């Protein structure tokens, strides 16, 4: 046990020393971590793990993104759901789909999409409030959205009956390709389209 601790301390020390990375090394390290992660990695986490300044890390990610764009290869770096991710470029979608033998996943019904839109813009929002806006019972749509992890329960509203409130999830950002909620166009933009 003691030995193991010694080794760990030693590794720790070596790592501490190794922190002085060149810009290229930092970019390479950032790329390795983004690749390894199974979900988008926030710059803050990258900075913590690499023990680097967050500004340097953000700069490195920016450089990496440019490199990818310039290479014009099969991959791209994206900022999504509050983090960075490597994914394929859209132009390869047919080939990738043929390779993975997947169909585009089952689309959400219009009822679900409408309910999701209400939740996205009015969150946190309760079931009665959704009914009010949509003019239809939306229970099954809400259930679908919960099952697909696109929305999550967000505490109770302090009114009569303390109803559950709902809001969008991280998966929502991921599946709709959003950096964060502020990237959603403002609801007023859609009002202008009305007649």
């Amino acid at each position, binding site marked *: 046990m003691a030995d193991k601790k010694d080794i760990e301390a030693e590794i720790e020390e070596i790592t501490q020393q190794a922190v002085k990375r060149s810009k290229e090394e930092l970019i390479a390290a950032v790329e390795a971590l983004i*690749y*390894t992660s*199974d979900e988008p990695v926030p710059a803050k986490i990258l900075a913590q793990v690499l023990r680097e300044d967050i500004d340097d890390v953000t700069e490195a990610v920016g450089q990496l993104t440019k490199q990818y764009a310039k290479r014009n290869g099969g991959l791209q770096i*994206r900022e999504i759901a509050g983090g960075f*991710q*490597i*994914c*394929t*470029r*859209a132009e390869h*979608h047919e080939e*990738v789909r043929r390779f*993975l033998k997947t*169909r*585009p*996943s*089952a*689309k*959400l*019904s*219009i*009822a679900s*999409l*409408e309910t*999701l*839109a*209400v939740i*996205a*813009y009015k969150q946190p929002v309760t079931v009665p409030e959704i009914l009010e*806006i*949509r*003019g*239809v*019972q939306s229970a099954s749509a809400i259930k679908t959205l*919960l099952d697909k*992890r696109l929305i*999550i*329960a967000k505490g109770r509203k302090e009114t009569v009956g303390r109803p559950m409130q709902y809001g969008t*999830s991280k998966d929502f950002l991921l*599946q*709709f*390709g*959003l950096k964060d909620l502020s990237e959603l*166009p403002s*609801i007023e933009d*859609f*009002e202008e*389209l*009305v*007649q």
Partner: protein
Amino acid sequence: MSEQVEQIDQLTFDFYKEQPHIVRESRDELRLRLGDFAGPLDLLLYLIKQEQANIFDIPIARITDEYLKYIRIMEKLDITVATDFLVMAATLIEIKSKMLLPRDESELVGEDIEDPREELVRALLEHQTFKNAAGMLYERVQLEQAVFARGKIESDENNAEINATLYDIVTVFQKILARHREEVQMEIEREEVSMAEIIRDLKHRLTTLNEISVVKYFEEMKSRRELVTAFIAVLEIVRTETVKLVQSATFGDIILRRV
């Protein structure tokens, strides 16, 4: 397999082409197909468009009549939806009657008389706004589906791990409770369904139906105990009666058929 295909067909549509439309079900039966639009506000928007009316000056009497006509056609829609539609019908009738009331001359002097349609117009506009927003979400998802994340790598560990949310906790607890209930039920039902009863029931069904899907029959059983009894009953009936088991394809459904 067929179930999966069905699901995809059911869920695949083009957001912008999906419009309410009227289907001729038979010679004298028209039916409004609203698809996923099945809401009263959608129907109203549709009618207003059909009538080429101005949303800010809805010809309420005409629209109400049209609306009620559709409600009658739509009797076949399921109950919950129908309820929402009926609530709207009541609202429309109320607005219509208010509009018919003679206006007090003295009231006309005041600059802003409340229009009985105001609340409805607001609801329609808000609904339309969110429909537009839903269209935006639809487009985003389309774009997003052209982009793929990396395949699994070793460090992703086993996928039995899930990023739990509150919903997971509730549903998991619900499942545990359901499992519990089932076990309790099993305890109670023990001895309740006898082999003789099951065989009698099965014979009766065969005389009326000629054919029984064995899988579906087994699925009806509420407990493991009932299932075992049913299984033995099927074997028994094949042995003693003029009945045989047929399977059309490997792994296909097994049919119990009278000879």
